[in-house]
């Protein structure tokens, strides 16, 4: 088995499509990290000066509008006898809004927030790239017919299936671990350098999310590999993936389900990585004005069960099919 695994890892390494996809799985997160750090850099004097310039400009426009309102209050929805104070209230409202802090169009790096934003995006990028690796790896064996030659060397189909799946899983786990480690190290290093370190407990959540990300990427890659072995076609497997992604969103929306967000695939992925996906739940109405009273959440446990069922079904069908069906 170790020998076969080594062969399959070499086969993966030699495939150009795999190399390109792995490159993308590194380059895109690097770009996301660069953009996140650029947007999250500390606010400096130039940023604040620009914000103050915009405050002054906005206030000037607002004061012009107040003057127009006083000349013709009816144009502003007020009665003909409106006093100047009413125009001020309509146009400017709360004067405390016109501060430089509200005109800073970006916020400094917040590691806790990035965990549920760009952290999820990086995991999704990795998952897509490595799903394509799994699909193209298996698909090329079927497309070229080389699988039959491999089976003439080792006809134990279960072992061949497992060796290929393990190779895909190992590559996915390794790449996801490296990329996510580098990503969070970059953000963590920058936060420390900029004196923006998050409060206690945030790094624990980040590590948990990163580990969940590695598991998700590995599972997704192996599932797509298994799906391609089942359908014997890269295009077919990717078609099913797209159909399943769209279908899992459309079908719950069309069915008489109270909160379709509860069942769609992206919700499960988000919940699995971040630990919680909140959605508006009409079944809790009347829920009043408090937001928390109107929402329900998908937890990591629910998402794990959902994703695990999908994965186990695909893997079981794939192994059963590969062991029984004729190989062209």
């Amino acid at each position: 088995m170790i020998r076969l695994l080594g062969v399959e890892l070499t086969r993966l390494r030699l495939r150009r499509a795999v190399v390109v996809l792995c490159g993308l799985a590194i380059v895109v997160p690097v770009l996301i990290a660069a953009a996140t750090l650029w947007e999250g850099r500390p606010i400096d004097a130039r940023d604040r000066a620009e914000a103050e310039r915009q405050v002054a400009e906005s206030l000037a426009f607002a004061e012009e509008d107040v003057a127009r309102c006083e000349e013709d209050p009816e144009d502003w929805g007020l009665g003909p006898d409106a006093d100047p104070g009413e125009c001020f209230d309509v146009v400017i409202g709360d004067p405390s809004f016109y501060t430089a802090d509200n005109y800073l169009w970006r916020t400094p790096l917040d590691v806790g927030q990035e965990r549920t934003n760009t952290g999820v995006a990086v995991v999704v990028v990795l998952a897509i790239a490595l799903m394509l690796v799994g699909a193209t790896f298996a698909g090329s064996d079927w497309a070229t017919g080389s699988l039959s030659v491999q089976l003439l060397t080792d006809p134990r189909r279960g072992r061949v299936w497992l060796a290929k799946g393990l190779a895909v899983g190992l590559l996915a786990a390794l790449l996801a671990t490296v990329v996510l480690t580098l990503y969070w190290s970059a953000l963590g290093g920058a936060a420390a350098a900029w004196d923006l370190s998050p409060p206690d407990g945030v790094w624990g959540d980040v590590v948990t999310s990163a580990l969940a990300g590695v598991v998700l990427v590995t599972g997704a890659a192996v599932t797509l590999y298994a799906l391609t072995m089942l359908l014997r076609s890269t295009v077919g497997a990717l078609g099913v993936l797209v159909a399943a992604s769209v279908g899992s969103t459309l079908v719950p929306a069309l069915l008489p389900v109270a909160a379709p967000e509860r069942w769609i695939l992206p919700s499960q992925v988000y919940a699995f990585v971040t630990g919680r996906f909140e959605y508006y739940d009409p079944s809790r109405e009347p829920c009043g004005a408090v937001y928390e009273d109107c929402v329900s959440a998908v937890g990591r446990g629910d998402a794990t069960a959902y994703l695990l069922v999908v994965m186990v079904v695909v893997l079981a069908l794939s192994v059963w099919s590969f062991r029984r069906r004729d190989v062209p």
Partner: protein
Amino acid sequence: MVEHAVETRGLSKTFRTRHGVRTAVDGLDLLVPATGVHGFLGPNGSGKTTTIRLLLGLARASAGEMRVLGRPVPQELPDVIGRVGAVVESPKFSPTFTGRQNLDLLARAGGLPRTRVDRALEQVGMSERAGDRYQAYSLGMKQRLAIAATLLKDPALLVLDEPTNGLDPAGIREIRELVRSLGEGGVAVLVSSHILAEVQQVCTSASIVGRGRLLAQGPVESLLGASTTYRVRVADPAAARAVLERAGWTVRPEPAAPGSTGSTGSTGSTAGALVVDPGPEPAHRVAQVLGEAGLWPDELTPLRPDLESVFLDLTAEHGLAGGAR
């Protein structure tokens, strides 16, 4: 040592199609001797490739038993596959890998030393191009690489499905010599081919199948038949025919388009020539009978049926059209 390298009994394979169930192999009883080269002949769609795929575990039999090198397959195929080399239909390798990389991966998967790769490449004359990508190879080179892959294992049984497809005449001769030498060296070789003359040159035994059934099987010599006919040319064919018929032999004018080949290699009819079948009597008896009647033969040539004519006769007899594939 097992008596048969391949043995099938009642082997059947059916496929479900949109038009119903199609039987590709129908109760086939195949025997391939443990040594020598065995030809596997049949028209298109006669089940040859399906049979090979069943033997190699690439397809599942619907019924029947198979043994390869004395072991029941597919149950014990993993135990014997290390001694079986095979090329099924066209060569199939990863197109973006080099020839050597493709063979290296197979050797590693089979737990074989890498020195075998060099040796196999050399055996098929591919050493110089081994570093090129497989997709850049000509069909003939792909076929050679496929044969090299079969030689990695030091096989006791070699299964070659149309091994000379795409090869140039020199390549065909090389492969023929290779197959012959492997057969003489103690390897059992099962060759499926549609080039019947080639099979006849190389094979020591053969099986002929049609519509998934065995039509004939045995040593090539016995398939060709024990009796020999002769072409006789004399100055007076009518008189000669009467004399030969009086001797109790079958005589007919040589047909216009015979499916037989003279021992000299010439084909086609000979004006005024007769074909006589003297049964077990030797050639000199034919000459003696004619000479005693004063009809001295200008030509007395033994005519032996070749595998192609045997094949065509058999397939026609069973109502099977098409070529031999």
